[in-house]
């Protein structure tokens, strides 16, 4: 059996060993999206210094795809400028994960939305 799991190897890896999972002390911004009533909920913490995302952490309540999307997103945005991060789309997350089942694309959208929400939070805090 060469494909014993429902997701790509990369998804399974990020699900099993999520990168950047956990809390953050004194985050520069927090993005909260979803809620348990919808079956998934994502919380993204960003540490931003000089317009650059120097650290990212997440907590996610959700399926394998949601957890892997969160993990992948944090990996992608670390080191990016805010402008670069703003232009990240869910498709890029999906591609980086080696694809997601159609029915799970919305999990990558949630990751994108968590990022947007964190950016919004940062703007609000820093205006």
């Amino acid at each position: 059996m060469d494909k014993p799991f429902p997701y790509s190897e990369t998804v399974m890896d990020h699900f099993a060993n999520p990168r950047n999972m956990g809390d953050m002390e004194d985050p520069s911004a927090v993005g909260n999206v979803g809620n348990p009533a919808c079956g998934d909920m994502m919380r993204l913490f960003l540490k931003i210094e000089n317009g650059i995302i120097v650290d990212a952490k997440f907590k996610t309540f959700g399926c394998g795809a949601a957890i892997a999307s969160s993990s992948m997103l944090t990996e992608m945005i670390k080191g990016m400028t805010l402008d670069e991060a703003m232009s990240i789309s869910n498709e890029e997350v999906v591609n980086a994960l080696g694809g997601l089942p159609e029915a799970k694309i919305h999990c990558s959208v949630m990751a994108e939305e968590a990022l947007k929400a964190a950016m919004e939070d940062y703007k609000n805090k820093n205006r």
Partner: protein
Amino acid sequence: MQTEKFVYFDNINTTFPDPRVVRKIDEVLNFRLGNPSAHIHSAGIAAGKVVDEAREKVAAYIGAAPETLIFTSGATEANNLAITGFLKANPEFGFVCSNIEHFSVLNQIRSLRNSVKTSILDVDSYGLVEPDSLEKVLKNNRSIVSLSLANPEIGTMQDIEKISEICSRNGSILHSDATAAAGLIEIDVNKMGIDLLTLSGHNIYGPAGVGALYVNKKIRLASIFEGGNQESGIRPGTENVPGIAGMGEACEALKGDMKSHEKRLRDLGNDLWKSLQESVRFVNFTGHPEKRLPGHVSFWVEHIEGESLLLLLSMNGVMASSGSACSSNLKAKDEDELMASHVLAAVGVPSDICSGSITLSAGRYNTEEDFNYVKSVLPGLVEKLLTMSPSYDDYMKNKETTDG
């Protein structure tokens, strides 16, 4: 990432064929059998005999006469034939089912409601139908009542003898889908007072692609598709000879040790329930604590999502399900199909959890070791997901605040 462990706790969705079943099918496929309708030559007659013998064996499992069985392609077709076939032949009847039936029963409402009186009964928080509410519906309208012997997702077994008594007292007909119960408990259609009963091959250690409908002799059914005269004209189409033979063998194989497996699985299941109750934080069990299938444990865990727990279990070699195989349909075309379980909604599980239930369903091949393994890994996996859960964080913070 793979593991050597292979601990199968998804027997409710399908079982592995008994070795005797595999051997029988192999034998039948090698027999040079004709079409059973070809009564004129020996190859056809031999095929008919294979079917007849299997019919006797399946009938014996449910305490019925062989000629009361109609072979179908599976439980889905049998459920459709039982209800739509009955109402085609008896259009003066109504249709009643519970809100936790399988979609092959429940969704028939969609096409039937234009032509017959239909009612859906609510179940209580254990998944049990209220006898009084059934009686009330039937008082107004003779009906075919379809209530499954056991629910696959939450394991609850209806009090079928009480239900059948109400049905017959009110001139109504009782269909029971035994897909989830068969193979795990003894079934006797006469003792239970069931008029129509659905059986599925692949749920009783037989092959997929075959099922059977028991039809009490007093009942007239119409076929739901057109064709030849097979199965007394009620189920046209050349018989699935190898599949039917396999199902017969599966029933034969059940006979000997049904009782001992039932007891063993019931004890191991109760033990697992108790263990998880102690070891898993935020666990909530679903279904009735006693009136349930042997070896069936189902639950949801606050603050964590079901699929991710199933996936962690799978990575650790434990194969479980979210109850009905359809619910976790990753091949769904869009999010809408990933709907929350109608069964959990019916028993009052909050909607944020309905995508999050776990069903551990054992079968006769599960050993005590299998149960122990689940006990040993499950609590840790739940903890892992709790540490990742923002919902758990919120809960804890909230608790600190209110406690502090």
